């Protein structure tokens, strides 16, 4: 399946755009998505940390990703 991943903050700079498309196997997990992105964009690994959000909630590494989910990369937050 193809997943469109939203990017914010420094992740947008790393991906070179506000979204990036990733091909994943069905039943892929958040950890699979991270591995795939880190392979393509090694700079992700240099961040202090980053999270994946699925449907507007922080996702666990073991969480499954479905084709129609809204998926986003959340680099370290710095609001306020």
């Amino acid at each position: 399946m193809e997943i469109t991943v939203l990017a914010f903050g420094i992740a947008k700079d790393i991906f070179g755009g506000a979204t990036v498309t990733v091909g994943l196997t069905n039943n892929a997990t958040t950890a699979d998505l991270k591995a795939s992105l880190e392979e393509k964009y090694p700079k992700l690994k240099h961040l202090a940390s980053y999270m994946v959000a699925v449907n507007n909630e922080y996702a666990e590494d073991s969480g499954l990703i479905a084709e129609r989910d809204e998926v986003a990369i959340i680099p370290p937050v710095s609001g306020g």
Partner: protein
Amino acid sequence: MQTQIEIHTAPLNIQACTDWIMSPDSGGIDVFIGTVRNVTKGRAVLKLEFEAYNKMAINEIKKITKQAFEKWPVQKVLVHHRTGTLQIGEIPVIIAVSAAHRAAAFDACRYIIDSLKQTVPIWKKEFFEDGEVWVAAHP
């Protein structure tokens, strides 16, 4: 138990926030106003840029305000956050809390701003004379 959570691209309005938070049964209101500082670790800051994942940011702020209501006897909670480019002295965030007694208002207000900085998907970029940096991105 009322909350008002908003993310704006236009300048935040302090008066509108204090008007909303006022109520006859309150004995105290605590207001936190975040402002853009002109220096970070000795380097002059020219301006800041804020970006939010709006829908999720509102969700996460709701969780924090809900926790504040569970932890303290507060009456109303307001969180307004700004996005876009902000100049020195401008206001990225206003948090207002009303309660019957001041201790709850102070404690809840501090809890909300401290938690917001940890979990709410909003990002800040600092612009210096010689470059720019996403705050907290790198160790």
